[in-house]
């Protein structure tokens, strides 16, 4: 069948693009809410979490709460929690780090030969310095393929990237209010390590290459926190007409130490959309939640409505949503189930569905192994010659991750 053949090729392309885009991942573990951490500032130098260096406290928690302890009951963090396993002590004001993640990827689309390859997902170093109330942070990395919108160099492959670089000032002694400007991760939704979730790709708010230049205010007050950002475009893309301008905001309320609910909103306009090449008014809005009903289980959910007005090319009203359950039977071992749904809003496009089964083992200080099995049923829009259809694919991803 020609329709199914087109569908298989479309899914193969989508998988290829996803995993080329999947050249990097940052550390963002929102399941830390199960330990009573509703916010990110205690452990991350980025107050909204996800990207950048860990604080000294965060490094200690990575040793005490993140990795497998093999029976140790010590309440003191091991010396190896420090930079480079403790061999490079730093002053408290200087926070440095690095992330290296390698993977083996296998993808089988029905009717198409299996695709297998190694991926360098992340090879970044980053730092954050705090002098009084003033802050400066940045990252530098190498990407063999993809992440062009974060590139400093301009080759088709093998580029240097800087995902974030900003200057900021804390407005109070506790760091509960931070104003910063530069290239920032767009404040929207849940900052999950699974940056290729459809909720992240459709809203263009992942941790890898969709950062934007602009200025933001982070605020945290008792049970409420959030960040609002004025977006002035990605200055690592030229010419100017491809840059999106607008705003993004999330606000999260934590009524209990084991639960947080929030909403996000985003609007941008680009004279030429980087994908569609026409003037694009892009809207995204939606709620999200984190909840730990019992000690070892954390549930996440996010649903975003995305609307695009593409000049001379009509409107697209779509959505992306996911639910994830993270169960930690013993410290350092996480078993996860994720379900997703998505529709990009193209004419006649049926909704896409997928499911993930994942396991992560934080087996040594600074190191973890991860295995993902993903089954996708991707909706393929109708053509003049064939009706809409679904194409199925099964993917496996084995990862090794080390942070400095």
């Amino acid at each position, binding site marked *: 069948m*020609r329709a199914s053949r*087109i569908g298989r*090729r479309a899914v*193969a*392309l989508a*998988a*290829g*693009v996803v*995993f*080329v885009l999947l050249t990097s991942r940052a550390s963002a573990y929102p399941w830390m809410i199960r330990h009573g951490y509703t916010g990110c500032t205690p452990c991350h130098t980025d107050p909204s979490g996800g990207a950048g260096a860990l604080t000294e406290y965060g490094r200690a928690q990575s040793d005490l709460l993140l990795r497998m302890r093999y029976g140790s009951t010590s309440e003191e963090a091991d010396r*190896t929690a420090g930079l480079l*396993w403790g061999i490079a002590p730093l002053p408290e004001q200087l926070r440095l780090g690095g992330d*290296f993640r390698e993977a083996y990827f296998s993808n089988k689309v029905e009717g198409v030969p299996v*695709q297998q*390859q*190694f991926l*360098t997902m992340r*090879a970044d170093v980053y730092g954050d310095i705090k002098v009084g109330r003033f802050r400066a942070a940045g990252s530098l990395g190498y990407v*063999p*393929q*993809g992440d*062009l*919108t974060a*590139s*400093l*160099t*301009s080759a*088709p*492959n093998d*580029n240097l990237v800087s995902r974030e670089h900003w200057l900021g*000032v804390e*407005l109070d002694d506790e760091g509960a*209010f931070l104003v910063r*400007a530069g290239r920032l991760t767009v404040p929207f939704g849940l900052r999950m390590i699974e940056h290729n979730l459809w909720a992240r790709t459709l809203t263009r708010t992942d941790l890898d290459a969709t950062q934007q230049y*602009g*200025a*933001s*205010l982070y*605020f945290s007050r008792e049970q409420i926190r959030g960040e*609002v950002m*004025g977006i*002035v475009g990605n*200055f*690592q*893309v*030229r*010419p*100017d007409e491809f840059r999106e301008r607008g705003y993004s905001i999330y606000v999260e309320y934590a009524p209990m130490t084991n639960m947080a609910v929030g909403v996000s909103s985003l609007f941008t306009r680009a004279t030429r959309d*980087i*994908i*569609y*090449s026409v003037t694009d008014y892009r809207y995204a809005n939606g709620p999200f939640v984190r909840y730990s009903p019992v000690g070892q289980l954390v549930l996440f959910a996010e649903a975003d409505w995305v609307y695009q007005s593409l000049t001379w*090319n009509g409107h697209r009203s779509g959505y992306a949503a996911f639910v994830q359950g993270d169960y930690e039977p013993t410290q350092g071992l996480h078993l996860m189930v994720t379900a997703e749904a998505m529709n990009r809003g*193209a*004419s006649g*496009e049926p909704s896409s569905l997928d499911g993930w089964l994942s396991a992560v083992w934080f087996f*040594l200080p600074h190191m973890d192994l991860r295995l993902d099995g993903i089954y996708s049923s991707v909706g393929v829009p109708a*053509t003049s*010659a064939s009706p809409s259809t679904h194409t199925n694919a099964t993917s496996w991803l084995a990862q*090794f991750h080390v942070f400095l």
Partner: protein
Amino acid sequence: MDRRLLLFTTQALVMGVTLAWPATGSASASFPSVVESALNLTTITVDPPLGCKLCHTSDSGGLGTLSRFGTLMKQYGAMPGANQSVVQALMLVEQSDKALIDDIKAGRDPNADESAAPSLPSPQYGCSTVGRSTGAGPAWIAAALTALLALGRVVRKAKTREDSQGDGETGS
């Protein structure tokens, strides 16, 4: 051997292997079936069997990899994920540059044909002093930063006032 030293040596070895692990590119295919159907071809004639290089400079596809013919197709409305837009773009190319469609039908790469000269601007990536914007960006950042600082000041004042009131109530 000291246990800590053994642990560190193991970690260093694992990290070394990781950093030395080679990365290879990906290969995938997309619209070629639509091209086959629209042009009545029995199989893709350019860059078989995947056919991606008809419109991309590599089989990986993705942002920043459009070929000259791909850019021309985009100029005529071809859009990601929309097969019908590819059919329409091929029809428009056939009307304006029939030689390019004849190239495809004859198994020649239209990207090598000098008549494939797209005028649509395509995005470029990386830092450069060439082709910078009009300078509106930094002005926007300065304006937004000023506004946020002012907002932060208001918030901070309110917080201070609230804290001092709270202290007063506690004291009484």
